């Protein structure tokens, strides 16, 4: 069994949370609630933390089990494996979407004449290699990325502070709190920490440093970054531009120009983006692979890596005919689909477990009497 340190797990969580969200969330939030987008991001964080606490409760009740194993243990062989396969399909579809999103961004913003399939396959090669070396290897590489990501993010944020116009965030809460809450709830489905639940059994707990704790801390750090970036886009680009540029954070970073020489550093943003999306796809795909190994009773997930990787790259090409369908899917369908996997099902696991243990204790009680 391979193991990673809780610190590495935390770093994976941070990078995972920043991942694609950095580019999607400010724009979608500004479309929904204009200049209150940053408040929306705060609520996103609140909801996300709520989900993560549910995961933590599950982790504490079933130490050493992955989500799929929990499902099978709680719901029995048949229903359990149905739910397990639903989760596996969710993870793999998510990996497809992430790859597609990365490819589209690179295609429209940086390399317009490179065929998009080429981007998918090149990126997939790296991911497959990462998975082939296993969780220790990519956990450690995430540890190496982490200071780079922090440095670049810090640099970008400091450089952007000079452009801030605070009046852009007023009036606060113009249309009442309910649309903000609603959009916060919607956006919370774009950070799928549930994938990290699959990796939790691989974490070697060290005293107080447990997987659960790493998950909470990592998510909190990632969400803080998200709130800060959303706030910056609103304060610098204004709500209209944030809502209508497809990749507002990229536009934002393009604006950086200090003293005529510290400028054109958007490639740093792309570096952050590449590193975090790499982590996000690797973790998501690994979650799917672990699920498949466990439900199929395989010894190792290695034989699955290459075929599944190829399938994901191919699906990324065909699953959405164009960017508009992709964004529409993200806006309209993703919410209810994802919410059932990242919140509804885990909560029902928890309830089933509580009921089961309660009934079990009653039964025990009767016997002892």
């Amino acid at each position, binding site marked *: 069994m391979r193991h990673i340190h809780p610190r590495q797990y935390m770093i994976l969580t941070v990078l995972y949370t920043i991942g694609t969200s950095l580019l999607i969330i400010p724009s979608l939030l500004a479309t929904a609630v204009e200049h209150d987008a940053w408040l929306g991001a705060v609520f996103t964080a609140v909801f996300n933390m709520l989900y993560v606490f549910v995961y933590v409760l599950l982790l504490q009740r079933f130490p050493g089990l992955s989500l799929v194993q929990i499902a099978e243990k709680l719901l029995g062989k048949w229903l359990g494996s149905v739910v397990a396969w639903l989760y596996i399909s969710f993870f793999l579809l998510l990996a497809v979407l992430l790859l597609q999103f990365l490819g589209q961004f690179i295609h429209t913003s*940086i390399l317009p004449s490179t065929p998009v399939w080429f981007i998918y396959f090149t990126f997939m090669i790296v991911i497959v290699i990462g998975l082939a070396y296993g969780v220790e290897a990519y956990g450690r590489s995430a540890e190496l990325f982490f200071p780079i990501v922090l440095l670049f993010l810090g640099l970008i944020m400091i450089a952007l502070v000079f452009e801030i116009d605070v009046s852009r965030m007023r009036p606060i809460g113009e249309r009442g709190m309910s649309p903000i809450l609603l959009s916060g709830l919607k956006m919370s489905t774009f950070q799928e920490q549930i994938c990290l639940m699959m990796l939790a059994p691989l974490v070697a707990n060290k005293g107080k440093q447990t997987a659960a704790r790493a998950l909470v801390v990592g998510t909190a750090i990632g969400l803080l970054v998200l709130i800060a970036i959303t706030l910056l886009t609103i304060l610098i680009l*204004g709500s209209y531009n944030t809502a209508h540029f497809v990749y507002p954070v990229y536009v934002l970073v393009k604006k950086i120009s200090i003293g005529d020489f510290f400028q054109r550093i958007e490639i740093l943003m792309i570096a952050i983006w590449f590193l975090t999306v790499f982590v996000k796809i690797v973790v998501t795909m690994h979650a799917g692979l672990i699920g498949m190994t466990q439900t199929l009773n395989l010894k190792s997930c290695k034989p699955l890596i290459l075929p599944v990787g190829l399938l994901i790259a191919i699906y990324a090409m065909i699953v959405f005919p164009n960017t508009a369908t992709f964004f529409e899917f993200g806006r309209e369908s993703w919410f209810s689909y994802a919410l059932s996997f990242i919140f509804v099902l885990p909560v029902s696991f928890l309830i089933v477990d509580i009921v089961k243990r309660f009934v079990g204790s009653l039964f025990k009680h009767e016997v002892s009497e």
Partner: protein
Amino acid sequence: MRYAIRWLVLLFCIMILTSCWDRQELNEIAIVVGMGVDKIDDDILLSVQIVNPGNVAAQTAGSLESAPVITYTQRGKSIFEAIRKLTKLSSRKLYYSHLRIVVFSEQVAKEGISPLLDFLARDHELRTDYYVLISRNTEAQHILEITTLMDRIPANKLFSSLETSHWAWAATGKVTIDRLIELIAMEGDEAVLTGIIIKGDMQEGETMENTHRLALRTLLQYDGMAFFKKDKLVGWLNEDASKVYNYIKNSVISSVGVYACPEQEGEMTVEVTDAKSRVKGMVRNNQPKVKVSLNIEVNVGELECSMDLTQEHTLQQIELTLEESFKKVVEDTIAEMQTKYQIDIFGFGEAIHRANPSYWLEHKEEWSELFAKLDVQVDMDFHVRAIGGFNRSVPMQKEE
């Protein structure tokens, strides 16, 4: 064998990781520094100013056989079509990431610039760090055809002189495309863009001989600012009004103002070293009201009247005079916008919006009427900070 395969894989990686699909070799692209948009009938006349790479480097600066830039003009149904059609004229593919200025002609701006901004916001090669200008009394094409001397690339000259004059004179505005779009989209604020004119003879300005003279016969000069209603140009602010606009918008860094001396003949010139503005909106008894507070710090720069600047009393007198006269200028400018145009360029609507969102939601449709009779209170606060290195004026012969 394994070793060989590893090396092969590595070599293969090098091949695919260079992203050569999108390579743009420096000697295969033409760097566009300026873009001008005019209209003929329903078509767009697009002009681009391209750096002539052989003739901008320092060692060849003396050679005057060929121009440092080339201006191409092409007609098309849309900007993008015209851009691609330009390759019929240019030997290289045009590259837009280093664009410095975009000029719209006055005529185009009067018909509305929104349809023309779309390409600028959409295309991946364009950034957001260039400034948008309006060519006044002339076509945008001609602005890009005038030669300049100090900075041999005219678009660069326009870019840096806009920055310099915005910094030191404050009657011009630096507006980038994202800010422009934001201003057009905002309901309680309007766009204002700097105007550019050709001073002197246009034909002569188009030749390299223009730059041979000590006093250039033809120059590019910023002149006034154009204000918009949504995306359509409505009128021009003169120099004073442009300054007032910048003061209210809190974008004055430094400037100079000439005022009459207190209680005597002659004028004094003050240098503004710091200016802060606060626009506060409020709604009282269902009536919108805006309070503009300007806090300006000045140095005495030039005196034409005899005053003893070592006395505190004198400085207070100066401050009082400045406050009174500048307040009048500001009030007059605002009143002119209210009565003559009913266009809220100062963003007072946005101030009301921020102060009282529910009132704004109800009344934003009729804002231009409300703006016309809006109660604007101007508070002026001048501080004289320094008097320079001479504490009186130079003695002069009094006229009898």
